[in-house]
């Protein structure tokens, strides 16, 4: 009998709805509770209260795998016996396998770091990858690279899991059968033979956006041999609108580069620049450098205005935010543009929007020359054009924004190209279609779908991809692609800096890189990626490589390549190498990651020895020693310095914005073949039209679907919704009310039905929501779970791409085993509504769906958690502490509610080792600046990668069993309908001085170290979970089940060898990256010195794009962390509990415009 049957009441899902009205009432009545995390908290339903009072929510600790009591007892008996035996077990004998000939540069046991990059449309993420004995184990930002300065984003952090993904395609598949590459080459050469007679008129290449100089050169070579062939590019997201917008405003393709460090006022137009994508890491860092108020520094921090159509990190981080419907967006932008004297006349919007527009216009004008307008990649070209005109009108061009040669090798209108390609396929003009990367069958818009019929129509289709996906299923040939950590290549960073992709490991499976695949279309089909790359840089790219090498002594900025140097050096910091990237913000990390570890050049000797040897002979003819030096330097640094794109001398055309949309045309198409126009499907029964508007966005975790099979990213709580493993239809609270979502499907509970919103169940973090049917332009999706997110504009539904994958993998889901995850938003996307559109119909389906959200977990019960204030408030009161935490009335002045140091029964710890010799011991600590945390989640993934943290799956997340050691809490502030913003707060273990967890452990598995670290000793832990029960911060994580995959061979390669892999029944938590501390300590002590400040960089700190996390020695008053903790806005979380946390926070300071409502409101 199942436990469910014995105790049915435990399993009853209590459906008590929460009502928006109740929420509102609470907010108006309770002035004290200004910050909130979720609607459920505000509504304070009975279930929620119950949730709060539990260590782990109900059932979180229950083993529910359908085992009945008898089996359970049997298993228990057996495991008891086995446990006894296991204690006596012999360790199995291990072997040591040394090299036969040890490669130069390898010291067994010591990690090596190689510079490489993750290619990305809007600019590659420059990386430094750690290699443990030939296995890449951790991705970090390349701190030498101007586009990264050491930061990395969630996608590149998680790419290490992508490399070792056991679901990656391993073999070449031809029409369902495994074949060899030779067979493929044979078929291609036959087909090419036939093409030669007609100049390749039937040959088509479909790539993603190409930013690789070598790949573009290869494609151009092929097109030269086959003049009739065509190369098209398609990517569902990225900067294509931005390029088109620039073309519209300056007359030619160019890439706009922003300098946030020079911007006092920033207006973001639906731009999620603080999401910290691979291309905007530098932007985030520059922006953050202007957002750090410091004691004694009266300079005003910058101000960020955001107008947006759906909530984003950027919008909620903004000082003033305006949420509008997509249909109203252009009007607002035009009004602002008209106000600052750009574009045509704009009609002034009414209501609060007018107030906002006026305030923004006045402020931007007042800071002309130091203001910046940024438009989001998703916005149509016209918005970009308007933004550039505003920048021109405000005198920002050359100061806060500059235009350079386009980042893309061949900038085009991708939608147009797709249209042309499909037209050619329909006309039967395409005989060979080569899809190089990407998954166009899934990602093309619904009315321009590269569907089965079209794929079948092409006689020969080839797909190169990491996975066997929707496209490969319909292709005749599927070639497994090499991961970027396995292959040679090159790409460009956001400013155009050429960045070399260097492999860390030989391909795990018999993959081919894009370069190698394209070689099949030349007369040297067997050329290796390394040869192709090197040949390019030996010949075509030689000049730029050599000039970089010649002028590059110690990274001195070369004025020659910095055209904008004359404009007050604003550009200098961006385009140059190490020396120029200084400034106050980067000082501490420079030399941090590398000081203690050798950075290795020339991976050729390690990972591709044979390849390199071959290359040396084939290209030695022109490889002079100077070239060799420059080449090695490029490999060592990961980039070719001074190759940032040359500034373009452009003038922003004043009337571009009024000239309408960019001219569409069938450029490059075959004569006589008309491009397809979007085909509308047969009308739906209900007409399909609706009163709502839809907004499409890429998913914050799995992007356009390419990371669907990445467990780390799937389980990463999305920045604002904190949802995992699903995509949802986001609506505003008022819209939810209007839709009446929240009705129980069976209608059993009928009371106050239209008011019902999300329900939480007694099962903890599981959220049961209703499924919506979305109909848009005659197409529909039947299974979109509704999610209510405050701050969403009313009557607007936001959906994210990437889910609903029909053919992905064990993690991402498959159609054939009915494990499809989420719904496919591409099914609603049309070529005339690429990012938003009106006329969406929304209906309730009456079905329930469980969501796994972490937002309602681990509550802190509305205490003094987030301290925040405006810049004006901070100048008067740098502490920003709430009244309750201030001085206690009659007692000694200066005393706060935080108890004095000795106020504990335990003896104090002594960290003064060697004090008599002038050598103090260490006292590790961390400071987290809430002012600059933008909630991008990079720290969460970095921690997961560094510390071998397991993925638990959706069902376990719903039981609050996620294992992340650091979480990013999002606290909303203000009214439900119009929250002022969200405060992001990364919460790792606090490493309390008086740690509540330590005292309650019966087996001393968690203890205080001599350097103040709250240690977790896995091999002592017996899993009582008392520590977690007693932790006020809820940062301890328990392995309820065996979450680690001990079997899959590839995962064994992935793990960090310096961190224990935890098993079932063990508690774990943040260790301050103890392995890095010990490594640095050992290296320092061998040299007889102390660890230098900045030498130890924790994984979260290392990756943080905004440098919000700082770690170091509190005993050293000169350390960065000690200085930060001495700031007046420093405070300890729940310090009144006398835990004396080592990790402290710096109060958030924002700079809202006093003229706008949000700015007028007082603080707590």
């Amino acid at each position, binding site marked *: 009998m199942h436990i469910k049957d014995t105790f049915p009441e435990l399993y009853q899902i209590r459906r008590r709805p929460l009502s928006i009205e109740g929420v509102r009432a609470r907010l108006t009545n309770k002035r004290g509770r200004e910050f909130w995390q979720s609607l459920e908290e505000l509504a304070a339903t009975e279930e929620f209260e119950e949730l709060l009072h539990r260590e782990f929510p109900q059932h979180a600790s229950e083993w529910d795998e359908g085992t009945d009591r008898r089996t359970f007892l049997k298993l228990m008996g057996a495991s008891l016996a086995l446990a006894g035996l296991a204690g*006596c077990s*012999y*360790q199995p*004998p*291990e*072997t*040591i*396998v*040394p*090299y*036969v*000939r*040890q490669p130069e540069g390898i*010291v*067994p*046991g*010591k990690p090596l770091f190689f510079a490489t990059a993750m290619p990305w449309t809007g600019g590659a993420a420059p990386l430094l990858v750690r290699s443990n004995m030939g296995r890449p184990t951790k991705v970090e930002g390349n701190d030498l690279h101007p586009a990264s300065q050491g930061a990395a984003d969630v996608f590149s952090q998680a790419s290490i899991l992508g490399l070792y993904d056991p679901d990656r395609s391993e073999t070449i598949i031809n029409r369902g059968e495994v074949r060899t590459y030779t067979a493929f080459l044979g078929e291609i050469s036959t087909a090419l033979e036939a093409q030669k007679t007609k100049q390749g008129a039937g040959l088509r290449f479909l790539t993603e956006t190409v930013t690789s100089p070598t790949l573009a050169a290869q494609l151009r070579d092929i097109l030269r041999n086959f003049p009739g062939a065509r190369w098209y590019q398609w990517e569902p997201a990225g900067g294509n609108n931005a390029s088109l917008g620039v073309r519209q405003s300056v007359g030619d393709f160019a890439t706009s580069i922003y300098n946030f460090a020079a911007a006092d006022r920033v207006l973001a137009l639906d731009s999620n620049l603080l999401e910290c994508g691979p291309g905007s890491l530098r932007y985030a860092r520059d922006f953050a450098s202007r957002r750090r108020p410091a004691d004694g520094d009266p300079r005003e921090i910058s101000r960020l205005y955001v107008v947006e159509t759906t909530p984003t990190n950027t919008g909620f981080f903004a000082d003033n935010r305006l949420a509008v419907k997509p249909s109203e967006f252009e009007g607002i932008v035009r009004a602002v543009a008209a106000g600052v004297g750009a574009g045509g006349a704009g009609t002034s919007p009414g209501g609060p929007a007018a107030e906002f527009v006026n305030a923004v216009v006045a402020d931007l004008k007042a800071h002309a020359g130091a203001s910046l307008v940024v438009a989001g990649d998703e916005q149509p070209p016209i918005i970009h054009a308007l933004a550039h005109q505003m920048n021109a009108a405000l005198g920002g061009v050359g100061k806060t924004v500059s235009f350079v040669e386009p980042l893309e090798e061949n900038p085009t209108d991708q939608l147009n190209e797709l249209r042309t390609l499909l037209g050619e396929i329909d006309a039967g003009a395409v005989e060979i279609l080569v899809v190089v990367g990407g998954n166009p069958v899934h990602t093309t818009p619904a009315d321009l779908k590269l569907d089965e019929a079209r794929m079948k129509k092409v006689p020969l289709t080839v797909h190169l991809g990491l996975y066997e996906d929707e496209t490969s299923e319909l292709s005749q040939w599927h070639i497994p692609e090499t991961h970027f950590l396995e292959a040679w290549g090159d790409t460009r960073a956001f400013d155009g800096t050429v960045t070399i992709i260097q492999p860390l490991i030989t391909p795990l499976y018999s993959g081919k890189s894009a370069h190698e695949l394209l070689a099949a279309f030349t007369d040297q089909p067997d050329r290796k990626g390394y040869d192709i790359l090197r040949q390019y840089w030996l010949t075509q790219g030689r000049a730029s490589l050599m000039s970089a090498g010649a002028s590059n002594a110690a990274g001195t900025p070369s004025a020659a390549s910095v055209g904008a140097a004359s404009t007050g050096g604003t550009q200098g910091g961006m385009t140059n190498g190490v020396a120029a990237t200084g400034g106050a913000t980067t000082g501490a990390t420079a030399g941090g990651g590398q000081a203690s570890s050798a950075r290795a050049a020339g991976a050729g000797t390690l990972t591709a020895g044979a390849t390199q040897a071959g290359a040396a002979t084939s290209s030695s003819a022109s490889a002079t020693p100077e070239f060799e030096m420059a080449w090695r330097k490029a490999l060592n640094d990961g980039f070719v310095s001074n190759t940032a794109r040359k500034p373009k001398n452009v003038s922003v055309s004043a009337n571009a914005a009024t000239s309408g949309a960019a001219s569409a045309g069938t450029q490059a198409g075959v004569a006589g073949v008309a491009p397809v126009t979007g085909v509308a499907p047969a009308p739906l029964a209900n007409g399909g039209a609706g009163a709502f508007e839809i907004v499409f966005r890429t998913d914050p975790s799995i992007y356009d679907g390419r990371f669907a099979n990445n467990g780390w990213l799937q389980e990463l709580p999305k920045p604002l919704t904190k949802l995992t493993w699903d995509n949802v239809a986001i609506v505003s609270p008022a819209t939810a009310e209007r839709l009446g979502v929240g009705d129980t499907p069976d209608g059993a509970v009928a009371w106050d039905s239209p008011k019902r919103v999300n329900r939480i169940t007694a099962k903890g973090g599981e959220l049961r929501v209703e499924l919506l049917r979305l109909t848009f332009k005659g197409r529909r999706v039947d299974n979109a779970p509704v999610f209510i997110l405050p701050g969403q504009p009313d009557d607007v539904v936001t959906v994210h791409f990437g889910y609903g994958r029909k053919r992905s993998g064990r993690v991402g889901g498959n159609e054939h085993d009915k494990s499809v995850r989420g719904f496919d938003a591409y099914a609603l996307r049309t070529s005339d509504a690429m990012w938003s559109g009106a006329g969406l119909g929304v209906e309730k389906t009456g079905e329930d769906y469980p969501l796994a959200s972490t937002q309602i977990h681990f509550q802190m019960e509305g205490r003094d958690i987030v301290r925040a204030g405006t810049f004006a408030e901070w100048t008067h009161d740098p502490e920003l502490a709430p009244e309750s935490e201030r001085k206690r009335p009659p007692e000694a002045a200066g005393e706060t509610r935080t108890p004095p140091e000795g106020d504990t029964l335990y003896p104090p710890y002594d960290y003064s*080792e*060697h004090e008599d010799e002038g*050598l103090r*011991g260490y006292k590790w600590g961390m400071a987290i600046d809430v002012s600059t945390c933008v909630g991008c989640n990079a720290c969460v993934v970095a921690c997961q990668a560094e510390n071998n943290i397991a993925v638990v799956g959706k069902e376990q997340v719903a039981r609050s069993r996620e294992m992340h050691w650091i979480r990013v809490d999002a606290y909303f502030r203000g009214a439900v309908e119009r929250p002022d913003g969200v405060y992001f707060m990364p919460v790792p273990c606090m490493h309390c001085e008086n740690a509540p967890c330590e005292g309650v452990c019966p087996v001393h598995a968690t*203890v205080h*170290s*001599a*350097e103040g*670290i709250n*240690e977790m*000793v*896995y*091999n002592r832990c017996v899993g009582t979970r008392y520590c977690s029960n007693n932790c006020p911060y809820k940062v301890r994580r328990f392995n309820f089940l065996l979450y680690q995959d001990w079997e899959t061979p590839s995962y064994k390669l992935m793990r960090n060898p*310096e*961190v*224990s*892999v935890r098993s079932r029944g063990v508690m774990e938590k943040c*260790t301050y990256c*103890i*392995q890095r*501390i*010990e490594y640095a300590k*050992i290296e320092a*002590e*061998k040299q*007889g010195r102390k660890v230098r400040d900045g030498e130890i960089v924790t994984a979260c700190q290392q990756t943080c794009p905004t440098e919000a996390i700082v770690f170091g020695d509190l005993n050293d008053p000169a350390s960065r962390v000690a200085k930060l903790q001495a700031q007046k806005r420093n405070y300890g979380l729940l310090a009144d509990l006398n835990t004396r946390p080592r990790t402290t926070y710096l109060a958030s300071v924002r700079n809202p415009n006093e003229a706008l409502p949000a700015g007028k409101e007082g603080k707590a």
Partner: protein
Amino acid sequence: MQVFHRSTNTIAKVSIFGGVFIVAASLWVLAEINRSSYNTGQFIEVQQPVQFSHKHHVGDDGIDCRYCHTSVETSNTASIPPTKTCMNCHSQIWADSAYLEIVRASYRDNKPIEWTRVHDLPDYVYFNHSIHVNKGVGCASCHGRVDQMPMVYQAASLQMEWCLACHRAPERFLRPKEKITDMAWNIEADLGEGVAADPFNLLAENKAESRVKLGLQLKQEYRVRNARVLTSCSTCHR
């Protein structure tokens, strides 16, 4: 009427005493088994693919430890030498010996020799050779007189109490850095191989006053951290 015979009184007393005794004895037996070489692998000679004799190479030929174990001063692992290191000499000496065919085959076929691990710590222990060597802990202190071992065996128990014996009072085991690889070094010859062979360090504690004096001096000089730091869990467990 007496139900039980008088002798049952004695039996009862004996069995109560016996019960306690049996429990104590079995605990003692368990502890002994736990510390025995059956459990720890101490003193057990390990078969290797090539019967490499440290006694010959170190003791007779006088090759320094670091000739083969190159990374012992810089890395966490001392490292097992690549086949190339063997062939440095054995392409000249004993170049035709049938005994060394495995080594030559490895070099020829580029196939590593798979050695059996002798000193195997649990996976949750992160031992670092370099810091010990750099702070004056000699090779022989843990590995014993390798120069007298025709086949290498584990000279110490490698149990945690053995580690802690030194981490609690490193001064009893430190030696001058220039004597690190000296197998026979001892002060006043009153310790001999006792350190490695005596897991409980009874010899060291009882006999070595001059040794401790030197150790304290070296501890100061090499800035060896105090016992609180050295016995923090995270020093070895991560």
